[in-house]
């Protein structure tokens, strides 16, 4: 087992991509002052709708578009309840996560006609970059070759979001709304529409994440296949705050843990430990980061 070989890097990127897409959605909401905990349910809903649309149309890209559109629509429930009605986003998110689990399992039986896992040779997955002609280049070939085109898109979107928040007028306004909604409103900014916008954008990003998970990483849908990745994304947002690159770092940490877990399973570690590893590592990172943060603020107080 060699951690440093390129295929390991490739599997880290594969594991990270869905999480980083979902976390990016959570980050945007967090910047605007809404704590979005519904990422898990939205990721699952995105995976399901992407598979259903791909199954119905026979085209993976239609599946991606369908997943994005359907999940953005699903996230409208959160945006209407939390922004328009000012309901507690945490409680709404608990409900939405449960609703997604129920809806996807229920509709799976009615639409796809199976329980548990749906897979079929007719179900079209996303093409790999190698099949699009990237396979032969050194380093890029083995690292990006087995990935779907959505994987590089995920990382490009992080850079784009960082640039948008830092350099553009609307990005600055979004940050202002998150830091002080009343002040932003008094300057004539429309707080509501900005918040609706980012919650819906988070839904769309989760749809993209789900599509990558169900049509990129694998080509199937199984009940509860998000398997806590949405929660890891929530923790990544807590770790990274409103800084996109820190959130990316947290997601990469999870990706390494998952890829490592897979490898160790290959050499005989029980599956249960491989399943648990990403959560344990995420939790440890959260605790360590909080301890470090506390130390730093304590030092500032005393000097």
């Amino acid at each position: 087992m060699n951690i440093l070989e390129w295929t390991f890097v490739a599997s880290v990127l594969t594991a990270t991509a869905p999480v980083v897409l979902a976390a990016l959605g959570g980050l945007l909401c967090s910047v605007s002052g809404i704590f979005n905990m519904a990422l898990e349910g939205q990721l699952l809903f995105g995976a399901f709708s992407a598979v259903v649309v791909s199954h119905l149309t026979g085209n993976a890209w239609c599946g991606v578009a369908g997943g994005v559109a359907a999940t953005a629509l699903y996230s409208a429930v959160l945006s209407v309840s939390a922004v328009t009605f000012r309901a507690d986003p945490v409680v709404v998110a608990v409900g939405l996560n449960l609703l997604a689990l129920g809806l996807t399992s229920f509709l799976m039986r009615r639409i796809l006609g199976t329980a548990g896992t749906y897979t079929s040779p007719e179900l079209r997955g996303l093409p790999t970059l190698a099949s699009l002609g990237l396979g032969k280049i050194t380093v890029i070939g083995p690292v990006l070759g087995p990935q779907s085109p959505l994987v590089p898109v995920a990382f490009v979107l992080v850079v784009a979001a960082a640039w948008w928040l830092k350099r553009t007028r609307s990005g600055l306004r979004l940050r202002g709304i998150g830091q002080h909604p009343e002040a932003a409103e008094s300057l004539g900014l429309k707080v509501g529409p900005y918040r609706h916008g980012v919650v819906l954008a988070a839904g769309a990003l989760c749809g993209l994440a789900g599509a990558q998970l169900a049509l990129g990483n694998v080509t199937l849908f199984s009940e509860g296949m998000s398997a806590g990745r949405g929660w890891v994304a929530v923790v990544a947002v807590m770790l990274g705050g409103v800084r996109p690159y820190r959130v990316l770092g947290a997601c990469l940490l999870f990706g390494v843990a998952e890829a490592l877990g897979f490898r160790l399973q290959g050499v005989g570690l029980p599956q249960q430990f491989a399943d648990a590893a990403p959560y344990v590592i995420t939790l440890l990172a959260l605790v360590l980061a909080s301890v470090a943060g506390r130390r730093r603020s304590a030092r500032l107080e005393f000097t």
Partner: protein
Amino acid sequence: MSRDVNQVMSRVVSRLMDRSGTAVLTIAGALALTTLVMVIVRVDPAEAYPALIRGAVADGNLEYTIASFVPTLGMALAFAIPLRTGEFNLGGDGQMALGGVVAAALALRVPLPSGIAVIVPLAAATLTGALVAGVSAPLRTRLGIPAIVTTLLISSPAVALASYLVRFPLAEAGTGNAQTPLIPDDAHLPSVGESGYVTLGLPLILLLTAAWLYVDGRTVLGYEIRATGANREFARYGGVPVDRLEISTLAGGGAFAGLVGGLIVLGPPFRFVDGALTAPGYTFTAIAAVLLATGRPVVVPFTVALMTILQVGGQGMERDAGVPSQLTQIMQGLIIVIVAVLATVRHRAGKRAVAAAIRADAPEPGEAEARSTEPARAGQAAGVTEAES
């Protein structure tokens, strides 16, 4: 005098109407939306709903429903107790699974005299649940990491650990099934009634629920817990040991989850079957029930009964009418969302009424303030208002 009594009575009645109005409205809304889902995927509601009711209360099934009521009520307390201080315990599955494994291990591996063969595993399960949940408390009080995240993150590894223990060290030799051997007869929970489904767990959990209701409503401890949930900093200022209460309520909630795990394992089928504790979804059924009770602990057993009927009935619906039982999960999710929305709508309507009353005397302070309030915080759906630190 009698007029005063009348006035108080009418106020109580109108309050009850108002609050149970929320619950009725929530259930009506959830039913309407669920029916909509049914119609869209061409399930006949006229066939599905009667099948659901039959599945929950028709002759053989009622005892089974009562048997499921026990773990659901226990998990409701596991969620409701920390919620009174404003914390969300979403890790019930892990606390329950590890509690169950510890109970099974003790019952299988430690020979105990028949008198305490039931009590010791149950106590150990309770303690395990309390420890697993208690880990989240210092993370919240010392490091400020919300319990909702840590309980959930701890839950998955805890369930995985339980699954590992059941599949390997504690597995039944030679069968290849992911389950422990049958626990010895001495450790079986005595059953109540004829079917054998309902065990001594039912009176036990009812007694403990009554005890919780008493502590919550009638004691200083309960008052301090509610004060912490209503406004943490104000409670701290008033001398309430907020951090200690946080630890005890989280551990107390976990204790109930662990106890439920023990009760399941020591009841029929008298073994730990991997996945059997978490698969019925007691944790989230209970969460929906507690949120539906909107902060009135006394109502919790009734909402739990309702949600249990839906949950068990859903399985009957699947058998009888071929409608996937996940429909009840959809209904639960909808109930939580609608409760959250109605809680703030009612809260704001109340504020508006107060503002209008003030406006009659003084010039307009109300509306701007009502609009600028932060999105209503966690506790409001549960009837406690949390002050974020």
